[in-house]
């Protein structure tokens, strides 16, 4: 359950959420919150214990955050209560970093820069599904938008969740195309997501459990932020593969998509599609290991849609968590073989060839290990499984068994392709 919020999440909101009007005592930055949280855990407390004046006082002194500041922030409880009511009525859910539902992928990838609180709207189960991020800078050409739409449609046909990020024309194209094709979409944006959710297409998709919006910023936070790297970073954290659609040399990159993709080149299958002259951003990504867009036939190999590793929900600081005994384990989900018959069969055979190539994934190995340039990467170390989720409780034995079925990776190597988009 997201509502009612846990004491820890309530406290994280009091400390970190911008509720508007702050100029005397500013909400804590992530680093400040991390310092505070670390001190609390080391001293046998949890964030929720800050409601006790003695705990708050001690924490303020030990961390140097200032007693007045902490007291003022924690004293916003009535104001927060009003906002929570509004957010609940608008069907937001709120997850704190210490909640078991906090998306594990974000914890794992963003580590200490994972937002202390996430605000979302829509079916959270989408966060657990195979996903492809289709992202790019601001102001791409129409051909890029068109390409993004096509990728979104392909994702839908292959039952992949699409991730869009930021509010540029490219994201709008991806989200719309994905939803109109009947697919599932996660849209990572900053600030209030509610206004967006009211569009007919979006509210219907949300009602059908096919649309989720996610933000690391409080819906009451109206500060303009020129660059929002968090958006791109959350998007790539949540996905299995990335399609970076190149812009032009004049394109801005408000959401720092290029940096986000660059940071994940080792862990995700990344593709770059340029139209005309590749930009410096695209060059940087391809030099760093991203796959330049190729003709899809070249990417065909066996086991295209089989096997993917999944990161399941858990807690970032599980060792410190007093309530949930979570066994750290290798995470791995048995291969869920895609029934190709269920894909729109014969008449799509030709395009299927293309699609298969696109949907090959580095993370598709049943072992949960991704292959990059012939190197086996164990991406899911120390990722705990949820209590009682036996299917997700991996073992080394299983890993071994699945490793034996990695012909698809090898075949991709035959074509000289270091990975595939999905």
């Amino acid at each position, binding site marked *: 359950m997201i509502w*009612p919020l846990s004491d820890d999440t309530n406290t994280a909101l009091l400390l970190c959420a911008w509720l*508007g009007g*702050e100029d005397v005592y500013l909400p804590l930055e992530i680093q400040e919150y991390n310092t505070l949280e670390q001190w609390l855990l080391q001293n046998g407390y949890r964030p929720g214990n800050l409601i006790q004046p003695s705990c708050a006082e001690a924490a303020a002194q030990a961390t140097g955050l200032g007693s007045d500041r902490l007291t003022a922030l924690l*004293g916003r409880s*009535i*104001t927060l209560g009003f906002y929570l009511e509004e957010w609940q009525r608008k*069907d937001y859910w709120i997850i704190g970093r210490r909640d078991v539902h906090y998306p594990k992928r974000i914890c794992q990838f963003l580590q200490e820069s994972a937002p202390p609180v996430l605000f979302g709207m829509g079916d959270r189960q989408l966060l657990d599904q195979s996903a492809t991020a289709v992202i790019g800078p601001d102001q791409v050409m129409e051909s890029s938008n068109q390409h993004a739409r096509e990728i979104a449609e392909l994702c839908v046909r292959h039952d992949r969740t699409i991730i869009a990020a930021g509010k540029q024309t490219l994201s709008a194209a991806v989200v719309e195309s994905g939803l109109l094709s009947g697919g599932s979409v996660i849209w990572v944006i900053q600030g209030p997501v509610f206004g967006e959710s009211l*569009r007919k297409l979006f509210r219907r998709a949300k009602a059908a459990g096919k649309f989720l919006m996610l933000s690391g910023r409080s819906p009451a936070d109206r500060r303009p932020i020129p660059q929002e790297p968090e958006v791109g970073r959350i998007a790539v954290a949540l996905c299995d593969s990335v399609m970076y659609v190149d812009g032009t040399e004049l394109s801005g990159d408000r959401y720092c998509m290029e940096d986000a993709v660059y940071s994940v080149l080792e862990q995700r299958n990344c593709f770059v599609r340029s139209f005309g002259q590749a930009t410096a951003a695209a060059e940087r990504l391809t030099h760093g290991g991203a796959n330049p867009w190729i003709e899809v036939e070249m990417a065909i190999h066996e086991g295209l849609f089989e096997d993917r590793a999944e990161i399941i929900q858990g807690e970032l600081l599980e060792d410190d968590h007093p309530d949930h005994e979570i066994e750290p384990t290798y995470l791995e989900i048995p291969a869920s073989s895609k029934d190709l018959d269920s894909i729109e069969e014969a008449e799509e055979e030709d395009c299927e060839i293309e699609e298969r190539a696109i949907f090959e994934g580095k993370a598709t190995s049943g072992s949960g290990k991704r292959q990059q340039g012939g190197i086996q990467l164990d991406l899911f170390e120390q990722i705990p499984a949820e209590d009682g989720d036996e299917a997700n409780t991996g073992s080394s034995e299983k890993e071994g068994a699945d490793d034996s079925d990695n012909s698809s990776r090898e075949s991709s190597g035959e074509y000289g392709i270091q990975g595939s988009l999905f």
Partner: protein
Amino acid sequence: MSSPKNPSTLKDVATQYLRDAVGRQDAEFRDGQWESIAQAVSGHRVLVVQRTGWGKTMVYTIATRLRREEGAGPSLMISPLVALMRNQELAAEKLNLTARRMTADNYDDWADIYEELESDDVDILMITPERLANVTFFSRVLSKIKLGIGMLIIDEAHCISDWGHDFRPDYQRIRRIQKLIPEGAAIVATTATANNRVVEDVQKELGGDIPVTRGSLIRHSLELHNLRLTDPQVRLAWIAQVVPHLPGSGIIYVLTRKDADLVAEWLKSQKIDAHAYYGNAGERDKLEKALLANELKVLVATIALGMGFDKKDLAFVIHYQRPGSVVHYYQQVGRAGRGVEKAYGFLMWGNEDEQIADYFLSNAFPPQHEINQVLKVLEDVEGGLTVPEIMFQINLKGSRIEKILKLASLESPAPVIWEMGAWVATGEAEGFEISQDKIRRLQEIRNREKEQMRQYMDHKGCLMAFLQRALDDQTAGRCGKCRNCQGKMNQSYQPRAELVSEAKQFMGKRKIFIYPNQKWPASNLSEHEIHESETIKPEYRAKWGFVLCRAFDGNLGDRILRERRFRDHYSDEIVAAFIAMIKKRVSKFQYITYVPPHEGKKHIPLLAEAVANELDLNLITTASRTGIGGRQSAQKNPVQRARNAADAFVIDYAVEAPTILIDDLIVSGWTLTTLAALLRYDGCHAVLPAALVKRTLSE
């Protein structure tokens, strides 16, 4: 979070504030007052259940002052009525606190208040619960309060409870808000009228272990009388006869605005200084001040002047009709006698009360199929719709649509949201169902309340004790003052016969106008040029018209409705009254025409013929029905009515000379407006509408 202070020192400080506020240096706190203040100051929650006049306001104003001195942010007060806030502003002033209210009637002050909030110059900000629904507004307010809200004050907290007699939907929002407020925040909830069940419910909502201060509800100064005077003219006569002899000033409560106007006008005609006061009267503030200063003998008010209106020397409260429940009655009659030794409460009731009570009951909660209709319309559009736009699409009353939207928007998550000036469906709209169990439960409560009111009216024992017991006041006993305690149960209260006759005449002679509509309720109602623009062109408008009487007036209006339904023509008395009205008020018109009746109906042509014969006017049949559209009576909102009338008539015979256009019943007025516009479009120089009886859409 406040730092603890020495309690005895704090109490001394608080006592001094109390003395300064009441202007008496020997004043002491009443039982429970200081304890409640201490709870709030130390950042806890407290529920204060005390009778009006006990000093609940003193609890939260002194607590606010003490908390502000400790550096806390301003208090936010949710108060159900503007009248209440005005008194609270004055109470705060006595403690050198700055209280500001942000309500619909002081919009011009808002910019200043925002600035004051930003510079932390406001100590208590007061809003109505409905204001919380405006997210943009509320976010803006909260964003200005840099220190955060220091204390939450929930006035008339019984509204939080589902069981409460005052079902204010927006209080549900407060209910949720306070549950979401983390511990350690000061909340003061106050009420004067809550029985055990409501207190327990409110307690549960505010946290089970919340301390409650509770006292006796008896008002010793009040002398209660129940008067069985069913005819309106008799009640009017009684009021006119008695009010001049009552000391000081008072309030007369009525159930509808229409009755507020009737009673006020009648009293004025009897040289009694009376004014009507209701929800949207622009002069409410001025009237309240006039009553507070005893510049008025009596205010005739709907429930809009109720909870929290604080006039210590209010000498009498008269109920022209019975209120919905005993608790409402206690609350309203309790306005009187707070600071005087003797005050009066008179309860009258009439034949119409039952009908009005049933109307309010039946309309309290909309059925699911109507909810579905509204949500479906919203789901099918992009960007949302306003209420008039919804009214254009579905045949439901505007007030009904508003109620549905209000109830639905209070759900969490909400299926509809007010966003950017329109109602918009959310992802929750599809398949949304309101809890029928909850509705049934609330309707049962309303029915029980109605029954209890009936028992009170027939009660033979002490009236004050009945009221106290109804509110679970364990101290209830014989008051010794009420009509029953004085043994006057059988004493007649009949007013003088000549005054009754005068009241009857007054009711018959009241001018009721037909205001010429200037705008169609929607655009493109038909392809005819009269509907070309939403504004009705001046050259197509009717003149001011007249109506003989109102429906359900206990007099001619009732007879007209009966004859319209059960006879094939109107009686001579009605026709004569109508002719007299036309003769008196209309001149220079030589032609008369009428709204073409539905097939088989002859009332209107016969009426027109009689008027034409008697006043020597030329009777012409100018229009006929096209057969398009349904019966106007089946249309439930003005937009549907205007739409239904838009293509219903065709002019067969144009007339240029000024013409009287008559109908028997006027409800929304769109039939007359449409026909007048068609006549004028075809060259008629002037059209004057006249009708027998006026009824509202809700009647």
